[in-house]
């Protein structure tokens, strides 16, 4: 890692050059919410002007730029009772601009899941290996809880990370590609004052978190609370719509579908991101569903995020962005569900005294 500073004006010029030469995505305002707040999404951008550098958070994560909602796995061409199978790993180099620390952590988690182990995914690898990532820090929204999961900062998974220190960005340069590009622009070694401003900025970010979720010991908590009534309580609210998984930076479960081409001369096998909250997620032949109730499925999502993965990869899979909470029409969010669960437990642990009052 090399540390440099760059004026905001010069940074914009750097981004502009990069964006004009490459397929690039950055945060853009796409709509306005009922309360007047802008709604941002990662969208294709063609100049630095189009990028909302001062955005808050995008509605859905940058995941789908590397793990598309739907993607062809293979294509068959039929001929005389035989067929030919083609598999193409899409490979367009991309630049992603403005990812928050937790968004990058989300991608690091996807790397762990999809690139490690016995069967790495060549589809994901093709997207990931040609992606240039520029991260940018930000002050948390009132409902962000990335700090609770230690994802308010990130130390890998990007080419360049920018910390806003007033009229300059403090740059953490993490790849020779990024350094080579930046050398063409006016970058400088940080002064003592820049270092101080960076420390102040980091402190401010850390102190600005309004939402905390206590995740210590959660894996065993979840195990013990498998039969807790809170799953039914929250499950009853859940609409089984799967939105939470679609906006989440780390959800990667999928379904496959076959499509026969019009003309019947070919067919394709397609993968679509799925959600464990959808009713048929765990249904098998004969109609048996291993998770028949809304609560069973909601619980499973929490187990996957906060327990299962913790056991497999020694880390929790949630980064604390609360996109799922913001997007959920039924007002279900990790903070409330986990706090509810902990209350359940705490009241049991001190069974002689009454339950603490819920806030």
């Amino acid at each position, binding site marked *: 890692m090399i540390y440099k500073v760059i004026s905001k004006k010069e940074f914009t010029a750097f981004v502009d050059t990069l964006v004009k030469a490459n397929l690039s995505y950055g945060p853009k305002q796409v709509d306005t919410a009922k309360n007047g707040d802008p709604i941002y999404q990662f969208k294709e951008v063609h100049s630095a002007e189009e990028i909302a550098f001062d955005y808050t958070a995008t509605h859905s994560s940058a995941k789908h730029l590397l793990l598309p909602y739907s993607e062809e796995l293979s294509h068959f061409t*039929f001929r005389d009772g035989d067929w030919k*199978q083609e598999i193409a790993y899409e490979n367009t180099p991309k630049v992603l601009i403005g990812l928050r620390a937790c968004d990058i952590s989300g991608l690091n988690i996807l790397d762990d899941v999809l690139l490690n182990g016995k069967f790495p995914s060549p589809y994901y690898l093709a997207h990931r290996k040609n992606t240039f990532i520029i991260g940018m820090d930000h002050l948390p929204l009132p409902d962000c809880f990335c700090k609770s999961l230690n994802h308010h900062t990130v130390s890998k998974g990007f080419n360049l990370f920018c910390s806003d220190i007033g009229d300059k960005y403090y740059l953490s340069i993490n790849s020779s590609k990024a350094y080579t590009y930046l050398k063409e622009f006016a970058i400088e070694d940080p002064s003592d004052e820049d270092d101080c401003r960076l420390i102040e900025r980091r402190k401010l970010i850390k102190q600005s978190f309004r939402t905390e979720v206590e995740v210590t010991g959660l894996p065993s908590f979840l195990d013990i609370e*498998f039969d807790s009534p809170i799953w039914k309580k929250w499950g009853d609210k859940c609409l089984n719509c799967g939105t939470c998984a679609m906006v989440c930076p780390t959800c990667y479960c999928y379904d*496959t579908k076959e499509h026969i081409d019009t003309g019947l001369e070919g067919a394709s*096998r397609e993968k679509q991101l799925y959600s464990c909250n959808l009713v048929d997620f765990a249904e098998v032949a004969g109609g048996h569903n*291993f998770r028949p109730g809304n609560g069973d499925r909601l619980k499973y999502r929490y187990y*996957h995020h906060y327990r299962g*993965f913790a056991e497999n990869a020694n880390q929790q899979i949630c980064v604390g962005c609360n996109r799922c909470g913001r997007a959920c029409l039924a007002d279900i969010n990790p903070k409330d569900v986990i706090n509810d669960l902990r209350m359940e437990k705490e009241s049991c642990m001190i069974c002689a005294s009454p339950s603490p009052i819920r806030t």
Partner: protein
Amino acid sequence: MQTDRGYKCRITNIVELTGEEKLFQLRIIDRHERQIFSFRPGQFLMLEVPGYGQIPISISSSTSNNEFIELCIRKAGRVTGALFQAKAGALVAIRGPFGSSFPMDEMADSNIILVAGGLGIAPLRAPLFWINDHRDRYNKVHLLYGTKEPSQLLFTYQFDEWKKVNHIDLQTIVENPSPEWQGKTGMITELLNDIAIEPANTYAIVCGPPVMFKFVCNQLDREGIPMNRMFVSLERRMHCGMGKCCRCMVGSTFTCVDGPVFDYWSVMNLQEAI
């Protein structure tokens, strides 16, 4: 590498077992691919019918046969429906083999109880063939097989060979007997009452519907067989076979990679497993 490229196979023979089940014999077309293909008893394949889909199916043939792979398939829906329309000579593709297997070496010099309920005989055929191929390495072998109706008993044409040639104690039972049924009637657990179990020197393999696992394994437990010497094969929805789609996850366990074969102790400790 995780890829969706399969080995192309020709369906060389189709045996109609019952109205609902057929045995498909496949031959990998490419000679080199055919020679390198090998599997262990208990493993499964992802079977692809292009244009219809890809499904997990247990390998139901002998590990020592490189020329053919046999799959015993029940008609359940889209992909299996398409297969049931297929004639010998048609082409399909397979990926795999995937998953864990029955520890046949660990079981050597012991008695083995194979318990099959319904279509559970399909994944049991591979270990059964293995035992037959290495019969002198195993002591007493019981195959207890139960179905709802007598007409649902599969592979009856092989029973004599299994019993007489391979010295396997084969017993069957049905829940709803037909008028001509002369065998035993009742649940599969009743067959366990009729055999002498030596718990210190016995392994069990149990395949069938989830409800059956608990009853059979708990009874074997009462007989004194340690839970880590009973093996079950779990069924889950599967789309990748490689630990990536998460459809087959039970807790933090992937049925496709960590299973489908588990010892009963591990399954007992897994919520939602059976």
